[in-house]
């Protein structure tokens, strides 16, 4: 799995940080930081949930890799 984030779409709700704190963090101004663009398998379910509930659709997943 490859994770991409689009900072311009991020609305700083912080849900990804709550759901997958090993993959996502926030800058001091609230915008998402991607900690791990290729998270290990055991985190995939959490990352998928984070992408699904992201209110700004700022998280894109490529599941082919």
């Amino acid at each position, binding site marked *: 799995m490859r994770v991409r984030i689009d900072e311009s779409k991020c609305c700083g709700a912080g849900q990804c940080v709550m759901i997958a704190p090993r993959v996502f963090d926030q800058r001091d101004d*609230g915008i998402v930081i991607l900690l791990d663009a290729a998270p290990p398998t055991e985190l995939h379910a959490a990352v998928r949930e984070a992408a699904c509930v992201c*209110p700004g659709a700022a998280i894109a997943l490529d599941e082919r890799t």
Partner: protein
Amino acid sequence: MSAELLSPLPIKRTCPYAPPAEHRRLREEQPIAKVQLPNGRIAWAVTRHEHIRAVLSDPRFSSNRRDPGFPSLSHEPPPSSDLKPLLLEMDPPEHGQARRGVLGEFTVQRTQALGPRIQQIVDQHIDAMLAGPKPVDLVQAFSLPVPSLVICELLGVPYADHEFFQTRSSALVNQKTPAEEIARAVGELMMYLGRLVAAKAESPTDDLLGRQIAKQRESGAVHYEDLVSMAFLLLIAGHETTANMISLSTLVLLQQPDKLAALQRDPSKTIAAVEELLRYFTIAEHALGRVAREDVELGGVRIGAGEGVLLLANTANRDPAVFGDADELDLERGSRNHLAFGFGPHQCLGQNLARLELQIVIDTLFRRIPGLRPAVPVDELPFKDETTVYGIREFPVTW
């Protein structure tokens, strides 16, 4: 729009824990339906999860509450307000810019730092309840003052002003308050917030308003009116909503003691439980609306420019396409894919603060008052039907 079947909204609930059956029928048969609002206007009611997410993510729908097409459940025309537009009324590009200006105040990290202070506020109110007479109204003794003091903490309202702040803000959110008293409370709060912002500009403090002032000063000028609007929004958005969730969550957990017991055996389940309580109640049931800026095709229905769209998230949060056994309160469901905080770029800014408050309340209230129970039969409780935000007006409890 042509005059087909029109359901008048709002509809009184028959069960205090479930949206009206008519809303469910709409979701199943007419997921995008024309409805009649109390002011006589016609709007579209949207009841499916996927459609509500689509509307809330689509910039062709405006959040401008001062637009005459914006769906309102009030009988009155929208007030002509002196307030600068609130964040929740703004559209792009102004909205994104304004929201980004304050986002940093609501990061997960900053919110969690408020935890110890929230715990203290919760404990103090439980101490006072335990020391006072019973039965007591949980709403007045606990549910309303706790979030009000959390907002004081967030904004940096000095301790000496807490009582002033609390009496005015509780008048504002109390449904029984006469209109002229509400107007007076709003006026006094706005004046107060104006003075607070001015005082913080004079001698900066390390709190939301203080930091915003410092930040604005760095980039040029301090926008006092924007800060007062912002403070007022936090007050109205974070006070009664959280209070209603505290009261309703307490009630439903007392009504389902096996679920409460399971939660108390393993407090690590509280996080998922709060998420489910948020989904289950979705109290801002009539608060989500938009107005179409242009013609939009949604789920095979054409919504015309200028037409209002009411998003019944409460019903969508029971959508079987998304949630299995959706009418069941399953505290271990753990799904965050609900619309209790809305969706899209306006999604609730204070959502993680609300979650934290509810987690601390649930972990503390039942532990410290083990015999807590309703002091009146539950079917006699005054539920807030037909209001923008659902809740309980008065909840006598004893122990």
